[in-house]
């Protein structure tokens, strides 16, 4: 029974580039609908970590199973939000959001319906005919998130999506993300170097070590929602994670 609930099973994941061992024997499970944050020191290979999970890189050793099968982006429904801005300048907001569905060759009427629904959720309906060049950074980030949610992903991977945004905007988009996650029950794996962000968002936190990266600890974060970054409980958890992550 317990096994059925596991959507992602990472088994002894090891990745080397030549002589450089980046990921060292990492094993963990992610449950369906879980919000997992991964934190670790800068340059510890967090992005490599995600790229391995999506199959962008081949593993040196170990395996990654999605729903019990080796990961395959053609078969599994995975969405990835990258650190870099990844909207496509030649597509309108609507076409950008439809991109994933189009690549998956969904029927046109289904695409139209799904896209309209997601655009409404992130508040971009009014801007659907705009091109990225006409939008602000926060709206671009919403387009990317809408594109990811539009495919109803089994797993949504996010690589420091809000790293370059100012604090206020980050808080707003984090709340929007949480709303989408609660509404759609998507499994989210969220990488960040921002401990406060991790504690604010996550159900579980995976703390990584320096290179060669392995898991230092997996923490359960049971703070009740909605959370506030200033409550003593919150600060306790934050300090706990900070202690774990300290490499100085």
């Amino acid at each position, binding site marked *: 029974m317990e096994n059925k609930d596991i959507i992602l099973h990472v088994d002894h994941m090891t990745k080397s580039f030549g002589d450089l061992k980046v990921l060292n024997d990492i094993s963990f499970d992610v449950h369906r609908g879980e919000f997992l944050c991964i934190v670790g020191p800068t340059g510890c290979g967090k992005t490599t970590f995600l790229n391995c999970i999506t199959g962008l890189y081949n593993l040196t050793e170990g395996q990654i199973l999605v729903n019990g099968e080796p990961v395959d982006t*053609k078969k*599994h429904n995975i*969405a990835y939000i*990258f650190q870099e801005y*990844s909207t496509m300048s030649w597509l309108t907001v609507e076409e950008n959001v439809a991109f*994933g569905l189009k*690549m*998956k060759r969904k029927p046109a009427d289904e695409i139209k319906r799904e896209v309209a629904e997601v655009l409404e959720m992130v508040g971009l309906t009014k801007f659907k005919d705009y091109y990225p060049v006409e939008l602000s950074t926060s709206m671009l980030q919403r387009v990317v998130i809408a594109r990811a949610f539009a495919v109803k992903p089994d797993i949504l991977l996010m690589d420091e999506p809000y790293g370059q945004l100012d604090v206020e905007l980050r808080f707003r988009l984090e709340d929007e993300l949480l709303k989408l996650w609660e509404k759609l029950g998507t499994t989210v794996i969220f990488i960040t170097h921002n401990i406060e962000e991790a504690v604010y968002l996550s159900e579980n936190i995976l703390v990584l070590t320096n290179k060669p990266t392995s898991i230092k600890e997996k923490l359960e974060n049971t703070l009740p929602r909605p959370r506030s970054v200033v409550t003593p409980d919150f600060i306790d958890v934050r300090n706990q994670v900070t202690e774990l992550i300290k490499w100085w």
Partner: protein
Amino acid sequence: MKKKNDNVWMLSIVSIVGFIAIWWLCCDVLKLTSSATLPGPVTVAKTFVKKLSSTAPDGATLPAHIFSSLQIALGGWMMGVVIGTPLGIFMAWYKKVDLFVRPVFDLLRPVPGLAWIPLMIILFGIGITPKIATVFLSAFVPCVLNSYTGIRQTKDVHMWVGQTFGASDTQMLWHIAVPTALPLIITGIRVALGASWTCIVAAEMLASTKGLGYMIQQARGIYRPDIIICGMIAIGGIGAIFSGILSLIENKIVKGVRRDG
């Protein structure tokens, strides 16, 4: 905003009117040169109107010359676009095509279109074929180079997005790489059109019985600078019209680019 744009248009008109005015001043008013050496704009305009219907002295009317040149230039250009653009795209996308085609392409690329003319004449005689072949080679090169460079500019992050959504190789080519390359591809097509037009006039100067280049060459032989200038005006005007049409097409199909003015 509107007013400002109107002024910008005025500036362009002033530049053309100014150019003609200076020409007129030098030739017809100050008479710095004799009208047999460099005729003024009035003489040229008269000749131009006359040449529209007169076949003297070179055997064909101006429209007939223009038509002949256009036929060859557009024919060769289209072939260059139709063959060169896909070739550039495939070379950039498929490593094997690149390895196969590139050595020959790199050898032929530095040879200017005009340098092909003597060989083409030997191969195909002096009819329309050698000229189309020469124009084709001039148009082909920029089409290949630009589409190649354009495809190579595809951003990694866009490829990753495609990959994580499970896109096939062909989907990534058509939905990511080609749209990325489109502005450069169109620039290539435009450069090719300019090159074709330049090339055909030069080709007609060497071996021909009709065409703008031929007309200019004949006019030089019988010392008619007014006809030479008419030919030059036709060449410049048609080139500008082409470039304008392609700009319009570019604005229509290249989306999501910031345009000023």
